[in-house]
């Protein structure tokens, strides 16, 4: 293999460089605004948690997190629920038009959200869904359902078909078999899928911002509003940024072995 010492050095250098911008934001979130603007310090000299306190006490900030959480959770549950039977169908059966359908799902994951922007705006205004959590959850299903189907199909194909057949011989009906036997067997697959649905819905801004105004405004939109305002409150902005990273950073350990599979839509 490559010389151990060189490769370790390279890897560590890459990791340090890639963590530096994140550290800088964390560093900034723990400083007062005077220190941020006044001096360039590599670590906070006057450690303060005031920025975080602002976010947790000001409704216009923390409601953004709550809104984001609500639509992300809704999206996650709905996406996985509809994707489960479909993924089973794709992994077990051939049927008329299956390949075309599978391809069509992929195109939805790949379509730029900007393309859907205009019609979504019109459609949701017409049916009266604008500025609700449901609107964003539904809109995010465009790219999350295909992703969920693809990942789940990858996991389900790993389970031998004999298991299904044995269960049917033992007298299980399909729904009972699916819930009692099959779902427990792909628990980890469901977990990984849920994580990726959570993540892609959590990081998306364009659709979430366009479909909401007040009641369901996501944290991402709250942050951009602050960016454009005059008299920037850098500390609070940095603190808000750090808080958006926390959920993903906490769960990533559990999916570390499947993360490549998830990003490649179940195909690695």
């Amino acid at each position, binding site marked *: *293999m*490559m010389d151990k010492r060189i*490769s*370790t050095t390279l*890897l560590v250098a*890459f990791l340090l460089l*890639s*963590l530096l*911008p*994140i550290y*800088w*934001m964390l560093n900034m979130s723990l400083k007062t605004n005077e220190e941020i603007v006044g001096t*360039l310090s590599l670590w906070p000299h006057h450690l303060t948690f005031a920025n975080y306190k602002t976010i947790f006490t000001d409704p216009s900030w923390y409601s953004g997190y709550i809104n984001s959480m609500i639509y992300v959770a809704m999206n996650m549950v*709905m996406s996985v*629920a*509809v994707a489960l*039977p*479909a993924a089973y169908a794709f992994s077990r*059966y*051939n*049927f*008329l038009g299956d390949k075309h359908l*599978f391809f069509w*799902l*992929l195109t939805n994951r*790949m*379509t*730029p959200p*900007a393309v859907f922007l*205009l*019609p979504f705006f019109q459609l949701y205004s017409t049916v009266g869904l604008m500025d609700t959590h449901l609107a964003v959850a*539904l*809109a995010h*299903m*465009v790219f999350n*359902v295909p992703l969920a*189907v693809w990942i789940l199909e*990858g996991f389900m194909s790993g389970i031998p078909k004999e298991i299904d057949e044995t269960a049917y011989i033992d007298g299980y009906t399909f729904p009972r078999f699916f819930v009692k036997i099959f779902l427990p067997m792909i628990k980890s697959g469901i977990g990984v899928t849920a994580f990726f649905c959570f993540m892609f819905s*959590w*990081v998306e*801004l*364009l659709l979430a911002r*366009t479909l909401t105004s007040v009641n369901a405004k996501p944290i*991402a939109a709250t942050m*951009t509003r602050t960016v454009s305002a005059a008299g920037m409150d850098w500390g609070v*902005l940095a603190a808000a*940024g750090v808080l*958006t*990273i926390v959920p993903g950073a906490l769960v*990533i*350990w559990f999916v*570390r072995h499947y*993360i*490549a*599979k998830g*990003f*490649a*839509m179940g*195909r*690695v």
Partner: protein
Amino acid sequence: MKTYNNRAWFLVLPVLLCVAFSAILPLMTVVNYSVQDILSPTQSVFVGTEWFKTVLRDADLHGALARQLIFSLAVLAVQIPLGILIALCMPASGWRASLALVLISLPLLIPWNVVGTIWQIFGRGDIGLMGYTLNSLGMDYNYNGNSIDAWMTVLVMDIWHWTPLVVLLCYAGLRAIPDAYYQAARIDGASRFAVFRFIQLPKMRNVLMIAVLLRFMDSFMIYTEPFVLTGGGPGNATTFLSQYLTQKAVGQFDLGPASAFSLIYFLIILLFCFVLYTWMQRVGTGDAK
């Protein structure tokens, strides 16, 4: 072997309905708008391919498309080799490998607007580490005023953000190579480069293809990060296709041209999708060498 059973359609039905509501319906609306001139909610005129002609002749669009292509190619040119290199440096197993995996993936999990915010903070000349360092090294760096600086910042940001994806995919590909290959190479006395060139690279071909296509398409729809960082500026320097479309659709509310443009954009993506799909199927069934 899979059995042929058309009743499987019932299992697919929920997905079909969901995605039909959120994809087919909107897409049909776009088609509808793209061939009509909407004068008022009750009055519209059929204009045929007029909007498509307008859009195709639009000089701003040509600019955005050119920038988009250069950007996507630059992204690939840097991220793919860098990703392969880092993947080769990763430890094979143990807690070190797990830790490196988690730390490397971290940028992928950050909300896209926060990615913009991070670099906005990091690159500023007065309060950002990178901007401050570059300026004190004697470079006149300012991503808000200078187009080249803005461009480089967006590019570096994307490399920082998405190279981890290439690393992860290559790492997964490398782990799939059986140990016997390396043993055979050792017996033959193959050099480090020969091992890479004749064992690792061919074995990574499929995941690399997925990585290239995913990176190409995702960079092709980049919106949020430059929106937060530069807002498409200075001037038009970092206005990519999605930015341009959003400006047209939401900013100016030009329904006709925006819809025609959406469709063209969609067709380009569809083409690349087909290539990606074919490759993913090959990886999935494992019949590729």
